[in-house]
């Protein structure tokens, strides 16, 4: 790791101020990706602004069907929230399959989506739920937030503070692990929301998380795994790597979509 300077913020305002004072700085949340990347000398922020000690960023609040998850809430807390599970079990299940138990106890939802790893789970969940990402300066719809590989709509120094979504009527997530990294080789989140059916795919797209209109249409006409039988998934925009080529991923998209629907009930 290259040399860096650490700062601990106790409020959102302090964090934003610290970050703006250091052009080459970065926010540090759970650090489960950032520290690893820095260890490999693939990232070299001059300064780190730690968000884990800002109470306002942590926790889950629910009003009616409206869910708000603080950006510094660890995956383990999302997975274990009984209140959230009663409303939207799919997001709890998704959180319970991120990384491993230790990673889930440090890693946070804000850190995960700000990084937007093309194989991360939360981007599929939030895109599938049609969530809103709240930052220190604005609200961004998930459709606009996830731009590309490791790329988001966040501006320089902008900080995710929370995610908001309305609990869907039904939702499910199915993930096929990369056998080595245990990231999603393909993960599909399906949701029947007030504004329609949404299907979001992670781990498979060569440009990161994406929605699949064909799968959405099929589920709109009939919410069942069988309805997906005749949908074709085009491999041409999918990733090929050591573990899975695009054709295999195209197959997994469909199979995981079916299983996500089955899980959603």
């Amino acid at each position, binding site marked *: 790791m290259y040399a860096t300077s650490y700062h601990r913020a106790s409020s959102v305002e302090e964090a934003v101020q610290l970050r703006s004072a250091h052009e080459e700085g970065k926010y540090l949340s759970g650090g489960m990706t950032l*520290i690893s990347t820095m260890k490999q000398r693939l990232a070299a922020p001059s300064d780190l602004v730690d968000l884990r000690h800002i109470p306002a960023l942590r926790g889950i609040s629910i009003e009616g069907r409206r869910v708000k998850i603080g950006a510094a809430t660890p995956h383990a807390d999302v997975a274990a929230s009984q209140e959230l599970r009663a409303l939207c079990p799919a997001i709890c299940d998704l959180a319970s399959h991120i*990384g491993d138990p230790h990673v889930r106890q440090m890693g946070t939802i804000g850190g995960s989506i700000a990084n937007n790893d093309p194989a991360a789970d939360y981007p599929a969940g939030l895109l599938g739920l049609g969530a809103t990402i709240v930052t220190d300066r604005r609200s961004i719809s998930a459709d606009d937030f996830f731009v590309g590989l490791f790329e988001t709509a966040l501006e320089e120094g902008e900080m995710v503070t929370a995610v908001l979504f309305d609990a869907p009527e039904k939702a499910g997530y199915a993930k096929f692990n990369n056998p080595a990294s245990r990231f999603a080789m393909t993960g599909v989140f399906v949701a029947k929301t007030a504004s329609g059916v949404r299907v979001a795919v992670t781990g498979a797209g060569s440009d990161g998380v994406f929605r699949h209109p064909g799968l959405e249409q099929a589920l709109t006409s009939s919410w069942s795994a069988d309805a997906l039988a005749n949908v074709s998934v085009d491999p041409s925009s999918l990733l090929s790597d050591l573990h899975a080529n695009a054709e295999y991923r195209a197959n997994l998209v469909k199979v995981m979509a079916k299983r996500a629907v089955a899980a959603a009930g």
Partner: protein
Amino acid sequence: MTKVTLTVNGRTMSGECEDRTLLVHFIREKLGLTGTHVGCDTTQCGACVIHMDGRSVKSCSILAVQASGSTITTIEGLASQGELHPVQAAFKEHHGLQCGFCTPGMVMTAVDMINRHGGSLTEEKVRTELDGNICRCTGYHNIVKAILAADAEMASGRQAAE
């Protein structure tokens, strides 16, 4: 250099380090507690698992400065007055270790697992919960057996206490 203060295994300990120093290196090199190991660079193998503020974490992916002010338990702090913790005893009884390198992380993971799921562990659940720990020697067979035995032992201990 930054001063880092931690409560480790019940004692307050301080040391100076660079901000880039990883918690695992601080524990090993500054505090001399070499039971916590490093087996990979990618937050996967789990040889470095410790408890921070009561939760199992990978100390290879946390800066020492990030942890400052927290309460840490390492493998050295698990046994009390020379008596092995029930998880340690179960690993010995069921031969849940060979070369010993992954063992501290495995044991700390098992303790955390039982803390969270005590009394309700099954073989399948234990195997899933071991997702973040790699062992090259045991094929996990006896680790799984040891964790299930420790869980049963600790559950019966809790029952007896009630």
